[in-house]
């Protein structure tokens, strides 16, 4: 327990941990000391001089070493100069004055200095309304400036730092928050100051400009309107915006978000999402968001949203009433019973998936999770459990990341893991190629694609790395699907689970297995009882298929063939897809931001999201549609309201026991306080008033006997001499259904690529940037050659969801 220190600020006494900064101590007693350069998540630099206060210390008598008393009170000696509250640490008996004449004068003068070069164009500034500089100026800015306006420096107002972030050089107050964020927090210092003195200005000469997937966060913490996103700038005035709590749907981290909406003239009066903002959850995303989560939200506004149910008549899809569509769908499923299949993806909410599972059970049909990655059932047993927080991992703990490029697959996890490593955690990064996490790794382990199991088992053996892991107080393993299909990843999960069990790292907080899934709620699907199917094609043949939130036809020719061979296809989705086009019945579903629901994150945290925009056309929530289909199919289902659906889920699924919507909505005070547009300014990140969610208790912690499958010997194909093995990897900005509608990201999505070792490329007579044809079992596509020295000469890396269907490693030809 750290020593506590008691001091007095503006007459208010407060006791805080030793080492606390005066500015933070003040916040704890509700005193806002104005700051610009200081941010509670970053090292203080004391450069803006806004937080000037008077600091006094008790006088100590040299001789007696006692505090000198003066009529009953300790005698206080104030420092001759004003001090910066953001750099001074608290001391016992310290007296701080933030409102004295001298302090106020100091703050006022800093403000006046700042305004000599700030345009004060608040009326046209995106930050207007949530800007501390504006608020301060209102509060006690100089009435009219003593600085002659025509002597102001005029600078460029529209400087792109890349295609996502714009800089207004006149508004910048040189606080360096953006630079320090990129350097200290993101670990990618792609922003810097150019020149010096009054000419100091922000630059980025990275390629592409502002090359970081965390760039959007700088627009949140920029205390003025100098940095804005290409997505939102000039989009709206902050005070016109409605705010609804939501959860990012782009990856299994489950970042808490706030959707800012407004009625749009150009969208003929519709209410639309104007921007996605982070919502504070210190145990999930803190106050950050990755650029995919921030900018890829547009898919829900896609022009190809399904608006009306449809039924195939004379080989054409015709719009029909809900009743007609539901009757037909229900009837077909009811007839087929066990000869039907429910195929659903982790894009759906817990409620949706639960109803679907209930329907399948009622029909005696198979409930298949649409995914090429296994192991979620093990995560349910030995995964993260209640009370876990990656933010708590540090010295003495260990983290393994295997077969995953966290930066590309789950950026906020990458950030949290990096920070844990910086706090002293042992970070073991095992991947066949170099990734951005290597830089922070205590140990970087390279293995050949196919050697995943051996690699995990080695971690169990006696060795420097093995001991570091075994002896760790807490240990977490992230496993992914890089270079692996369903079998490979399932087997890898088993090996990881076994290692965790053997080293006693299960069944307690901050220990266990985390799956780096491809979809937001894959873990939820597993918890509810969905399982992927190794031979999906066969499983679909001749069946009545109810496919929800997935596009097998579009993803993979083999599956397209299989679906064509299905008896009857009921497709339920928010968008038109290749699958809905071939379906016999099409059911339009509501997008996550049009309805309520919950997702289960990879850390097994169940979190609520809320409606933000009006429903598109006649679309209905998935779980409702399913309940209605079930009724027609003769399966009784009460879950027609979302909280009831969840209550039934909680009553039937062990790991959800005792949970309900009220519990999920509970919040507790979080530090640092965000203080949006207050003077103590954390950024435009939203406070969390709508719920921090609840983590599921793992089977192991519930005391269930953990039953782990036997780890299979490796069967996966391996790179051999003289032939190329195409292996799937995951890319952040891909052509996925939930990304491509966001045109802003086109440049970052880029073309399909195939990465080769330089020598391999040479042998094939290929150069970087060259267009090639790559083909393997039945699949083929065009891609651009990339070179990667860190991979073996035998492999060709093919990103998933870039138009070339690759579900697992395969022998390939590149021409």
């Amino acid at each position, binding site marked *: 327990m750290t020593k506590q220190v008691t001091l007095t600020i503006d007459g208010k006494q407060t006791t805080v941990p030793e080492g606390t900064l005066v500015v933070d101590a003040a916040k704890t007693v509700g005193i806002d000391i104005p700051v610009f350069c200081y941010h509670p998540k970053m090292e203080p630099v004391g450069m803006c001089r806004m937080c000037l206060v008077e600091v006094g210390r008790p006088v100590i008598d040299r001789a007696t070493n006692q505090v000198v008393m003066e009529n009953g009170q300790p005698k206080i000696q104030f420092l001759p100069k004003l001090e910066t509250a953001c750099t001074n640490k608290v001391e016992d008996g310290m007296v701080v004055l933030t409102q004295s004449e001298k302090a106020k004068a100091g703050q006022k003068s800093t403000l006046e200095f700042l305004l000599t070069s700030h345009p004060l164009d608040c009326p046209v500034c995106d930050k207007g309304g949530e800007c501390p500089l504006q608020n301060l100026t209102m509060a006690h800015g100089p009435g009219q400036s003593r600085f002659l306006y025509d002597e102001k420096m005029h600078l460029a107002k529209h400087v792109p730092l890349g295609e996502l972030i714009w800089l207004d050089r006149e508004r910048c107050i040189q606080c360096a928050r953006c630079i320090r964020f990129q350097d200290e927090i993101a670990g990618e*210092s792609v922003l810097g100051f150019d020149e010096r003195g009054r000419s100091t200005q922000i630059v980025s*000469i*990275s390629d592409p400009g502002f090359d970081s997937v965390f760039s959007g966060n700088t627009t949140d913490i920029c205390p003025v309107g100098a940095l804005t996103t290409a997505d939102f700038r000039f989009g709206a005035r902050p005070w016109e915006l409605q705010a609804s709590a939501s959860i990012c749907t782009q990856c299994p981290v489950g970042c808490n978000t706030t959707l800012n909406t407004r009625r749009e003239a150009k969208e003929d009066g519709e209410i639309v999402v104007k921007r996605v903002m982070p919502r504070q959850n210190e145990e999930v995303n803190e106050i950050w968001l990755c650029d995919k989560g921030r900018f890829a939200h547009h898919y829900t506004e896609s022009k190809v949203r399904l608006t009306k149910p449809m039924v195939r008549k004379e080989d054409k899809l015709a719009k029909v009433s809900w009743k007609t569509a539901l009757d037909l769908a229900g009837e077909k499923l009811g007839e087929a019973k066990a000869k039907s299949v429910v195929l659903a993806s982790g894009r759906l909410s817990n409620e949706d998936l639960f109803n679907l599972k209930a329907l399948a059970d009622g029909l005696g049909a198979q409930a298949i999770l649409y995914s090429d990655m296994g192991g979620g059932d093990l995560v349910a047993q030995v995964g993260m459990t209640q009370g876990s927080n990656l933010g708590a991992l540090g010295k003495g703990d260990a983290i393994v990341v295997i077969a995953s490029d966290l930066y590309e697959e789950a950026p906020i996890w990458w950030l949290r893991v990096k920070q844990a490593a910086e706090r002293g955690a042992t970070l073991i990064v095992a991947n066949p190629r170099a990734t951005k996490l290597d830089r922070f790794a205590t140990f970087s382990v390279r293995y050949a694609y196919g050697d995943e199991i051996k690699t995990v088992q080695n971690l169990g053996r006696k060795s420097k790395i093995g001991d570091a892991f075994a002896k760790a107080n807490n240990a977490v393993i992230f496993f992914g699907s890089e270079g692996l299909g369903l079998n490979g990843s399932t087997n890898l999960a088993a090996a990881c689970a076994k290692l965790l069990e053997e080293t006693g790292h299960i069944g307690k907080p901050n220990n266990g297995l985390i799956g780096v899934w491809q979809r937001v709620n894959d873990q939820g699907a597993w918890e509810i009882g969905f399982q992927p199917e190794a031979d999906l094609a066969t499983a679909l043949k001749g069946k009545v298929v109810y496919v929800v939130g997935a596009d097998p036809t579009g993803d993979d020719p083999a599956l397209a063939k299989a679906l064509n061979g299905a008896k009857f296809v009921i497709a339920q989705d928010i968008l038109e897809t290749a699958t809905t086009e071939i379906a016999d019945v099409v059911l339009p579903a509501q997008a996550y931001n049009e309805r309520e629901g919950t997702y289960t994150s990879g850390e097994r945290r169940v979190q609520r999201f809320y409606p933000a925009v009006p429903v598109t056309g006649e679309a209905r929530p998935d779980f409702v549609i399913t309940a209605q289909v079930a009724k027609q199919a003769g399966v009784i289902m009460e879950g027609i309201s979302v909280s009831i659906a969840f209550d039934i889920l909680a009553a039937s699924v062990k790991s959800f026991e005792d949970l309900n919507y009220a519990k999920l909505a509970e919040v507790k005070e979080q530090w640092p306080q965000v203080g949006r547009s207050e003077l103590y300014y954390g950024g435009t990140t939203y406070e969390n008033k709508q719920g921090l969610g609840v983590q599921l208790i793992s089977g192991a912690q519930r005391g269930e006997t953990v039953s782990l499958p036997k780890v299979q010997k490796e069967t996966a194909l391996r790179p051999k001499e003289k032939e190329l093995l195409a292996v799937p990897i995951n890319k952040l900005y891909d052509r996925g259904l939930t990304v491509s509608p966001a045109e802003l990201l086109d440049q970052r999505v880029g073309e399909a690529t195939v990465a080769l070792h330089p020598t391999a490329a040479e042998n094939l007579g290929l150069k970087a940037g060259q267009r090639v044809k790559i083909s393997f079992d039945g699949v083929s596509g065009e891609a651009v050659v990339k070179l990667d020295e860190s991979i073996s000469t035998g492999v060709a890396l093919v990103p998933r969801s870039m138009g070339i269907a690759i579900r697992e490693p395969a022998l390939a030809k590149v021409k």
Partner: protein
Amino acid sequence: MSLAEKYPKEVKQILAKYPPEHKRAAVMPLLYLAQRNDGYVTKDAMKDVAQMLEITDTDVASIVGFYTLYHDEHKSKYYMQVCTDLPCALRGADQFMENLCEHLGIQVGETTPDGLVTLEAVTCLAACDKAPMFQLQGPDGLEYHEDMTLDKTLELIAALKREDKQ
């Protein structure tokens, strides 16, 4: 061709001055080397130095931007930087500069028509007792010229011209 390839000895010497875990400290000497090589610090040189020291291009650019002795564009072969700071000005530096401008027919900050010399006014060069004075920054470094007169200066420039010809 990278600096390390072109000047292996110099680069090695420079890196040897600083603890390996703090090799970023070598950025300034390496930038001087790059500037000597190209006459100014090119974008490619910045990339090269950044890679060598495992920092970002932007990091390097912001160093170049901060210090006045690095040039990120090619203005001329020589920079004649006259000290016009207080102590020198008290001894006629401003007048000297004026005359020089007049004879060269250019303003402070401009380059002679033949693109050989750029005339700049700079702050104190620690030669206040030898005003008027200037430093001449050129391909092979930098030298002080003290107790200067207009004639001596014009001769110097003429000499530079001749030397540049052959």
